[in-house]
């Protein structure tokens, strides 16, 4: 059997993900997380924070909640149901940093927690910073050329 034929066979036999159901679950869970964020934002606003500060504290609160839920082994259970709904919001990023930090604790504080903490989130940071720089450069050039 040729390589191409075999891979076609494998793909035809592999069970597919239930896309529609997964979309709905992700929409529901992701939406709930965002709603929670909005509620927190409103509360902080009512407590006297201006808009910029309220946004900042909301993000920090969501990160804290996600980190605590990860440490209690609850976040992965929510993620099992919610899929991308728990991955995309800022809570997913917090989970990606806290989970390897916890998992590698037995290896020590520096070589375990310290080294491994960004093993999942690392690429996101690298390409995030790179994309931001590129965006800034293009923005600057356009400004110099008086296009914008």
């Amino acid at each position, binding site marked *: *059997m040729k*390589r191409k034929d*075999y*891979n076609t066979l*494998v793909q035809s*036999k*592999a*069970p*597919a*993900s239930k896309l529609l159901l997964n979309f709905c679950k992700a929409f529901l869970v992701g939406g709930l997380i965002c709603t929670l964020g909005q509620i927190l934002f409103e509360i902080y606003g009512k407590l006297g924070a201006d808009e910029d500060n309220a946004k900042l504290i909301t993000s920090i609160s969501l990160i804290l909640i996600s980190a605590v839920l*990860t*440490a209690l*082994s609850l*976040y*992965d259970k*929510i*993620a*099992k149901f*919610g*899929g991308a709904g*728990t*991955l995309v919001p800022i809570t*997913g990023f917090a*989970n*990606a940093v*806290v*989970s*390897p930090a*916890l*998992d*590698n604790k*037995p290896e020590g504080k520096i070589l375990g927690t310290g080294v491994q903490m960004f093993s*999942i989130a690392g690429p996101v940071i690298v390409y995030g910073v790179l994309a931001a720089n590129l965006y800034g450069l293009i923005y600057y050039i356009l400004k110099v050329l008086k296009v914008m």
Partner: protein
Amino acid sequence: MAILLGRSIVYENAPMISFWGACVGKKEGEGPFAEKFDKVFEDTTLGKQAWEESESELIKNAAEIALAKGKWTWADIDCIFAGDLLSQCIASSYAFAGVGVNYCGLYGACSTMALALINAANLIECGAAARTLATTGSHFCSSERQFRFPLEYGNQRAPTAQWTVTGAGAAILESGKNHNCKDKVRIRAARFGEITDLGVTDANNMGAAMAPVSVRIGYIKERK
């Protein structure tokens, strides 16, 4: 002695598996083979700090169960063939640290047990050992860390993804000659596979990556 028949090793005296031991974690203990296991650990940490230590303890337990069934001590074993999924086969190395038996670490991933049994049988058949131990073990939690994602990370499992067993098995082999082999499983022939790569690169579908070699060596038939 053993002879080579085609690509297969055929054992003249067919070494027998005298005794064996198997112990597993909670999930496996709830499965269809539950009653076949000698010991089920409800606490999958086995009272250890790191998952790698728990895995080590599983392997040690399986081996000691097999020894106890034969009423032997470590001094009765001539060589240990063991392996696991971790770097440097660290779980099995620590499991047998201090037992004072010659040890050979093997790495075959899914095939480690077969690899251990073939090596153990070879040593007995050539007369260099009277009694050998073949063993392997794995732990879901240590494998997740070694190969996949942290346990608390909220990733999704692909429908074809495998679940690494939390468990260990050990078999003690003796020569098929001059022993009562009645009701014992015997190793009559063995064959090593050959690397067969049909280009499956999906780490979540290991079954598809491993199947081609079984067809190549004639273990399973290719469907036309």
